[in-house]
């Protein structure tokens, strides 16, 4: 297939998959078969685009002109390539996990769940491959809307409240801030195409650009920069596979992806470096990193602790991109992938613990590692990655960010990263300690591992966390291509 056909296939496959899932809803085995087949086929399609992009090609697809001068179009550049690879790859694993989780917990509305999941993947691929801001915005909004039924999956009062917060924050920021920013960009620059070096250079006064940057950074609510991070903990009411989708596969990744995209391709690193009005961004990101870590430290609920850890880790990406050096941009891009595989492992483990033992609080986990060695083993590997220790992939991204920050003599950033590493260790290490070294509580009911598909899925992602440390080749190549454009 030609690259353009592959782009079409990548977008159409999840949509067709959603239709297939809806039609086969009465036969669960067939339905899950459709999900898995679609996921594998999608990954294959995305993989098919990789050699070209690594070779420096930028496959394009023009669909139609949405507004005069603004196309609905797609262009696969290295950053989008990486995001699409991560999302489509993790969808396979997540589907396997979902099958185990949804069946073991006897969740209702499973067809709707798989349909919305497939639709959200279509939206994610759209975001990844979008060639301009409007196309990206279109799929960005679509992602919010199709994940809403997933977040409110249980349909009870708590889910409703969580859904309102989720929708309120995401639509509020995107319609209220991001859309005006995009329209203003159109009014100032006369184009919305993602262009290496940016489109806003010299087009407007520094104050206007500074204001615009603020609109973008807080308008992309999915990146969860404080104070627009509240939706992420609120969305914890959803079933665990959805949390994994939000935190690792699609939603927050779409947020930081959009942030990096805007910094590199809309403003341009060179333009921002000259812009005094952009200096606040590393500060806000740094504050988010530390503050979210502190909240995580004091959260006893495991999923809540993981959620705040995500808020903190996302700001690593924002901070790295905002430092505006090629090395940190490489680090930011790498961290999108690194955080994805590690965080999905953590959520999978949390879901497996809940399914097997019904436990949700950190303080209940004493000795659980002996009963669920595989799950907690994988969890420990992911924790290494989150802290940034070898031999996990988190080390690679943090290395690039630190190297870039030191090279640019941004000592505050270095200090923030160092401090947050300590905090990461402080809130993750006790979990591992409790699980393996504390004796189990006396009254605890006997239980073993979670169902096989779940354990298999989390072992795969844990293995990927290690594998990407040992063989970061293709990812790093993509990240370097992005860094070269910065």
């Amino acid at each position, binding site marked *: 297939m030609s690259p353009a056909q592959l782009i079409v296939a990548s977008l159409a496959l999840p949509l067709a998959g959603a239709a297939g899932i809806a039609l086969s809803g009465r036969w669960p085995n067939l339905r899950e078969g459709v999900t898995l087949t679609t996921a594998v086929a999608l990954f294959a399609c995305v993989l098919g685009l990789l050699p070209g992009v690594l070779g420096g090609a930028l496959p394009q697809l023009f669909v139609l002109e*949405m507004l005069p001068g603004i196309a609905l179009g797609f262009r696969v550049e290295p950053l989008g390539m990486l995001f699409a690879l991560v999302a489509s790859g993790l969808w396979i694993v997540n589907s396997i996990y979902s099958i185990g989780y949804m069946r073991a917990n006897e969740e209702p509305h499973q067809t709707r769940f798989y349909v919305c999941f497939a639709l959200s993947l279509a939206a994610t691929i759209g975001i990844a491959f979008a060639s301009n801001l409007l196309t990206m915005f279109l799929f960005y909004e679509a992602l919010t*809307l199709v994940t809403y*039924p997933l977040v*409110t999956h249980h*349909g009870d009062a708590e889910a*409703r409240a969580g859904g309102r917060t989720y*929708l309120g924050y995401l639509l509020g920021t995107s*319609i*209220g801030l991001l*859309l005006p920013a995009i329209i203003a960009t159109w009014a100032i620059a006369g184009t919305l195409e993602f262009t290496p070096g940016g489109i806003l250079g010299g087009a407007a006064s520094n104050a206007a650009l500074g204001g615009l940057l603020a609109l973008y950074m807080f308008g992309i609510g999915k990146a969860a920069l404080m104070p627009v991070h509240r939706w992420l903990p609120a969305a914890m009411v959803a079933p665990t596979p959805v949390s994994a989708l939000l935190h690792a596969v699609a939603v927050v990744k779409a947020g930081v992806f959009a942030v990096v995209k805007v910094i590199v391709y809309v403003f341009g690193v060179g333009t921002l470096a000259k812009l005094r009005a952009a200096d606040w961004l590393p500060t806000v990101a740094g504050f988010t990193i530390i503050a979210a870590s502190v909240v995580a430290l004091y959260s006893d609920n495991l999923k809540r602790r993981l959620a705040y850890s995500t808020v903190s880790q996302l700001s690593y990406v924002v901070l790295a991109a905002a430092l505006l050096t090629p090395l940190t941009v490489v680090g930011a891009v790498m961290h999108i992938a690194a955080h994805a595989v590690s965080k999905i492992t953590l959520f999978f483990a949390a879901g497996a613990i809940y399914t097997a033992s019904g436990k949700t609080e950190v303080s209940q986990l004493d000795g659980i590692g002996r009963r669920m060695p595989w799950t907690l083993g994988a969890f420990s590997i992911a924790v290494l990655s989150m802290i940034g220790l070898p031999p996990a992939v988190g080390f690679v991204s943090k290395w690039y960010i630190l190297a870039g920050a030191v090279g640019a003599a941004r000592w505050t950033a270095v200090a923030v990263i160092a401090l947050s590493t300590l905090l990461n260790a402080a809130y993750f290490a006790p979990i591992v300690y409790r699980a393996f070294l504390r004796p189990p509580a006396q009254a605890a009911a006997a239980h073993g591992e979670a169902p096989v598909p779940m354990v298999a899925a989390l072992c795969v992602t844990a293995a990927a966390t290690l594998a990407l440390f040992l063989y970061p080749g293709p990812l790093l190549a993509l990240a370097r291509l992005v860094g070269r454009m910065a």
Partner: protein
Amino acid sequence: MTFAHLPALEVVVPLIAAPLTVLIRRSAPAWAIAAAACSFSFVAALLLAAEVAAHGPISYHLGSWAPPWGIEYRVDALSAFVLVLVSGMATVTVPYAWRSIAAELPRDQVYLFYTMFCLCLAGLLGMTITGDAFNLFVFMEIGSLSSYVLIALGRDRRAQYASYQYLVLGTIGATFYVIGIGILYLATGTLNIADLAQRLQHVENLRPVLAGLAFITVGVSLKLALYPLHLWLPNAYTYAPSAVTAFLAATATKVSVYVLLRFYFSVFGLHLVSVTLPMPEILLVLSIVAIVSASLVALYQTDLKRLFAYSSVAQIGYITLGMSLTSRAGLTASVVHLFNHGITKGALFLLLGGVALRAGRTGLDRVHGLGRAMPLTSLGIVIAGLSLIGVPGTAGFVSKWYLVLAAIEAGRWWLAAFVVATSLIAVAYVWRFVEAAYLSEPDERTPEPGEAPLAMLLPAWLLVAACVYFGFDTSYTVEAARRAALLLLGAAQ
């Protein structure tokens, strides 16, 4: 030969169809006649629009009397666009009415519905196409009188009182309009709109002209339900039969907006309207108040038809807001929203008609768990609701885009912020339906599972599809609106 008389036939065919349906007195043939007349008007409107796009404005002299003495029918970029909207909505509504009206009216009255429907259509099309200010009044009254009857056909007794209220306010509005025209006639001695514009430039004593402007503004504003002259609208929309609500919501107020645009930009001219008088500022304030207050009131309604009726008042505010910016982007936004809001509201009210048919009424307490009982209807309402909010990929987004762009181009950042902020109120009221339909368990008031009849569902979904289609392919709507805006501003200079 026929082609040359298309502008006249556009109006005359539905006008003749009306008495024909009375003569036949049976519902099925009456329906067929109405459907044929509406389809003819739609095709004619499309042909006229194509002709205008290719060769410029058409001027048709009724009875071959040359203007300004004879009545002129004038089709240009703007009126052609409105003609397409009005006749298109009628063509979608008539097939829908087949089942919907049969369920809501006694059998022996059904043919009279089609009589009134054809008259109403003729009135609205006539208002749009005519180039004569007094002729416009006559068509306005044809359209209004028939719409009073249409509204009074509602099953609820409150429909009659709503219709009476609308009759009083509508007549006052039309009379104000005709007073304004009378004053202009005294000042210039002409009734032809193009001629009026010419001669007004040479009028020395401006005071009567300004009085005429004031009368016309108030009169037309009553008709288009500009805040605070909107009081007739919520009741009329709530209690009218479903097909009537959908048709009127999509067309009647829009045609009045068209009349206001015509008079402000083509007749009085930008200088008189914005320099001599502060009309843009007044419109701006009224629009802002309309958007905020009507959206907030909509938020607290317990009946869906009423909720979306108030939302209409707010959306009309967006249209007049674009007008008040008096820039190219602003007018483009205004005209494109006129169309996009027409199809969006049309879709919503048609779908609600299905809900009313299955659930008896459209209270929010009747739609608990509707997502499972009527999946297609619910999904349609959600999609049209998204268009109302202005989510990208829907028609409403295109309008919002131009509105915000116009505000930014005018340097009014606060206004851009206002527009996007108020879209969020729309999220809140649309989400009341979403939560009721999808996140609540069905109870005894929820209708039994089963969709509305296909004859109702199909037209409604056609409009829902149009909401999505015109969100992606904007080449027709935006291009037409852009040319209309150029025309209005060109005439204004």
